[in-house]
């Protein structure tokens, strides 16, 4: 198989990286819902960390996207 075909195959495979990010973000928000259900008055404190955690987890999935873009456009 030539380089072109392998490039696009590789770029398609990097989409599996989003799987981990999606599960991670889901876990963060599941933990927040659990925390608010057990202690509703802790909501402002929890909300502060939730967005930071979701942003950090989402970034990992975007790193996979960057690899895909590098494969398509810069290899």
């Amino acid at each position, binding site marked *: 198989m030539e380089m072109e075909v392998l490039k696009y195959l590789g770029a398609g495979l990097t989409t599996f990286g989003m799987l981990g990010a999606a599960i991670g973000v889901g876990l963060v928000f599941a933990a927040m819902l659990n925390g608010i259900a057990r202690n509703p008055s802790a909501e402002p404190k929890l909300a502060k960390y939730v967005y930071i955690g979701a*942003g950090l987890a989402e970034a990992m999935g975007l*790193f996979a*996207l*960057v690899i895909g873009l590098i494969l398509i456009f810069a290899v």
Partner: protein
Amino acid sequence: MSAGGGHGPLHQFVISPMAEMHIGGMDVSFTNSSLFMVLAISLVTFFLVGGMRKQALVPGRWQSMAELTYEFIANMIKDNVGTEGRSYFPFIFSLFMFILVCNLLGMVPYSFTVTSHIVVTFAFAFLVFLGVTVIGFVKHGLGFFKFFLPDGTPWWMAPLMIFIEVVAYLARPISLSVRLAANMMAGHTMLKVIAGFVIGMGWALGWLPFALLTILVGFEIFVAILQAYIFAILVCVYLNDAIHMH
């Protein structure tokens, strides 16, 4: 995707010079990226200077908003760095406001997102990383290397731990920069791709991707503000690591 003279979804990231300038063989043209950086700084300066013009004891609306942004960052620094972080407030405030306004300016149609280019975000992240490392060495001297060996590790795990900690420390500027650039670039590319669907699906079904586009624009504005906040708060966390080790 580019039918009949249109542009592809990645055309929005092209940097085009607006006023060519060359100094000694180096290309220092004023580009559309520079234009939006100047616009961002002008907006922030106008917002803050204009807001504080009255200096009333009971603030009006504009002054209230300027004071809100000040307090937001001041509290963030106080929570994450402590009282020694006070002297770094101007830097973190400027960084946060610039990234926030650059991100939000990118949401205006037909505009250019400065922070979607890895070179811009890497410049920010690298400067922060360099500054934080220098601050760590100035404050603790060579004892800063103790940062890489957490307390209580057994002696036989020390080499592996040091290696892992150093690699994680060096990954900080890369993750910081790529997080911001990838979020901005991916969001805008997705918006343009779905916008292409609106035209492509014609009159009958075109409203479906249009509704999705509306929701996504709202989400992208949220992501723009959130990513600026995450950048600023991670800078505070790294500063805290350097000033009070662990």
